[in-house]
């Protein structure tokens, strides 16, 4: 954390883990956004460990912060941390993942995770024509609640198209068995994810994709459609499919607009990604924090129910990025610079 002695250190930020690229991005963006304010913040990482997360929160409280921006590793388990903060008079802003089952959350800045899934699903639907298109499903970690939300959103969109025969599920007997049911219970989703989980891990994703391709008959190859939960796993799954001679073309989803995946999209190796503009999220979070520090209430456009309370919130838009609009959305907006990528020489 940069030392800015003159500024008041009254904001604490806790992010899930340095082990996932996404959060390293968020850290950078937070540091950028804070430069122009009168406050400085301490940013901590929980390394996927809820105990460490709680320890982080306790430490921040001990340092006398007034606002906590918490992105929980585990949205449910974070309630204890939020309550500890509330008890110390600290305002709690839930960041990206809603802290559930507690009234100790004051505000929620977020992308809509179910919407992310819907957008991924919709992209596949929009690019499919005819009948019996093979569909490969992949999901995040069983241990991450977001995995469930993403899948739920995607399933909502995909299921009718599976039921009407546009898609045939190629790699999950569990999903196949539930193909006539549009809204799944958590247990049913868990069953499916248990079979198609990447654990958010590239190597697992690759092993799984290879296994799927080995067991798929020729009829389930050719032009295929792949639901990949995020960019990291999408890349290793895409590489695997690209290496199979029986795959003529594939459409694959992603999420996060990680730099390497943007390059993949430019190169035509990944079809799309769901762009969650971290700058917006960060800005909303910081603005809310400053509003709290200055005695106000941040603006809310909607509320989310977390099981105990309706949390005021201002969800940020998520956008689909593919080859057609990548320059416009990511470069022209200044999110990334042009020189970060190699472009086709036309």
């Amino acid at each position, binding site marked *: 954390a940069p030392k800015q002695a003159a500024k008041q250190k009254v904001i604490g930020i806790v992010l899930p883990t340095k082990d996932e690229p996404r959060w390293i991005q968020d850290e950078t963006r937070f540091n950028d956004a804070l430069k122009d304010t009168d406050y400085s913040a301490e940013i901590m990482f929980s390394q996927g460990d809820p105990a460490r997360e709680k320890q982080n929160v306790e430490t921040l409280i001990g340092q006398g912060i007034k606002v906590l921006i918490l992105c929980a590793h585990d949205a449910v388990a974070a309630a204890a941390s939020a309550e500890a903060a509330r008890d110390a008079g600290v305002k709690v802003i839930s960041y990206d993942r809603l802290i559930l089952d507690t009234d100790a959350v004051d505000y929620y800045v977020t992308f809509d995770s179910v919407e992310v899934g819907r957008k991924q699903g919709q992209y596949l639907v929009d690019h499919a024509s005819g009948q019996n298109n093979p569909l490969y499903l992949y999901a995040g970690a069983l241990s991450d*609640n977001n995995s469930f939300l993403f899948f739920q959103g995607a399933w909502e969109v995909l299921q009718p198209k599976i039921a009407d025969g546009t898609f045939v599920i190629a790699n999950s007997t569990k999903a196949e068995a539930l193909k006539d049911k549009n809204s799944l219970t958590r247990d049913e989703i868990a069953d499916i994810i248990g079979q198609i989980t990447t654990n958010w891990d590239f190597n697992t994703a690759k092993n799984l994709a290879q296994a799927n391709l080995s067991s798929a008959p020729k009829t389930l190859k050719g032009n295929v459609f792949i639901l990949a939960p995020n960019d990291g796993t999408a890349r290793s799954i895409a590489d695997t499919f690209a290496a199979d001679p029986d795959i003529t073309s594939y459409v694959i989803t992603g999420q996060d607009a990680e730099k390497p995946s943007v390059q993949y999209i430019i190169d035509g190796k990944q079809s799309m990604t769901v762009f969650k503009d971290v700058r917006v999220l960060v800005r909303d979070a910081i603005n809310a924090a400053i509003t709290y520090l200055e005695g106000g209430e941040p603006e809310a456009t909607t509320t989310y129910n977390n099981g105990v309370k309706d949390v005021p919130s201002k969800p940020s838009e998520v956008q689909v990025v593919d080859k057609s609009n990548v320059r416009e959305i990511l470069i022209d907006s200044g999110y990334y610079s042009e020189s970060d990528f190699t472009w086709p020489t036309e």
Partner: protein
Amino acid sequence: MNSFGQHLKKFLVENVRDYAMFVALIAIMIVFEVLSGGTFLSPDNITNLINQTGYLAVLSIGVTLVIVIRHIDLSIGFLSGFLGAVAANLMMFYHFNAFTAILVVLLLGALAGLLNGSMVAYLGIPSFIATLAGWMAYRGALLLATRGMGTIIIKNETFNAIGNGFIPDIPGLENFLPGYHKLTLFLGIVAIIAIIFSSISSRRRQIQRGIEPIPFDMFILEMIFITAGLFYITLKIAAYNGISWTLLIVLGVTMIYYFITERTVLGRHIYAVGGNPEAAQLSGINVKKIILIVFTSMGMLAGLSGILFASRLKSATTTAGTMFELYAIAGAYIGGVSAAGGVGKVVNSLIGAFVMQTLQNGMLLLGVDVSLQYIILGVVLAIAVIFDVATRSRVH
């Protein structure tokens, strides 16, 4: 005066092993206190530190005995996580009350430990690999136990108090020493007095037995240190919310294990089996039984650790227990347990666990980058053990 200096030097040189950990701990604490500009030793941070260490401390204590008998247990991390999830399931879906759930979990832990112990004692499987198999199996079991909901929120006040609550104060004393937790002060003072008395009487007995005790001035010095240290911590804790349930449990477990290892036949047999298994066997000790007991106790403590952890987070999570085993083992090694068997004190392992946690807590306070945190932890661990090995071989 000169003789005091000589005594002190001799005393320090001779007891460097026993006191090194304390000295290291205090040194680390002072460094952090200075660097953090006074927040490190604030009442709330001390209390946090204690509560943060609880679930690892009980594992460290248990694994100390496992290492003493020349074995290892890698399964304890995920076993702890899994059992925490079992507790959550029992309370939330089967409507067990907190006490029954805890009892069942401790029992299951003991059973799991018994299973490990049997593989080691009766089938002769190296403990590293037997418990590595457990590591995998319990990891899967944890995923199964939490898959219904992902994370299971525990809404049981009694249970959650274990990891978050404090013992009540004596009622009716609100106006006496306001801002302090009176029961904590009282217990602290009682503990100090008890320690002083028992030290004096044990010294007297030593003299009677004709064993040369430490010089009188050193004895006084030691007493002053212990009294001051304990009193300081008591004051700090009392200025916040007092003794937490976690602290009480950890202290209780430590005292029980201290008692067992230092005073009972069982304790002696454990150290004998660790020091020389053949000799122990030929002396009529049932070595297999001892192995079973130690692993069973380990399993039970894993259950307790799972309870402490789940209660602290008021929930059971899918990844609870990840790496606990490594941190607990590291704590025991920092506390001076020896892989060669027969050597290692539970109290020192407790301190070892605290050293680990103090480092982490302090680095968090100072805002050290997490990558550096890992590196520093690794380096400190290496230094601690190098120091340990060096001082031990010197005395030898």
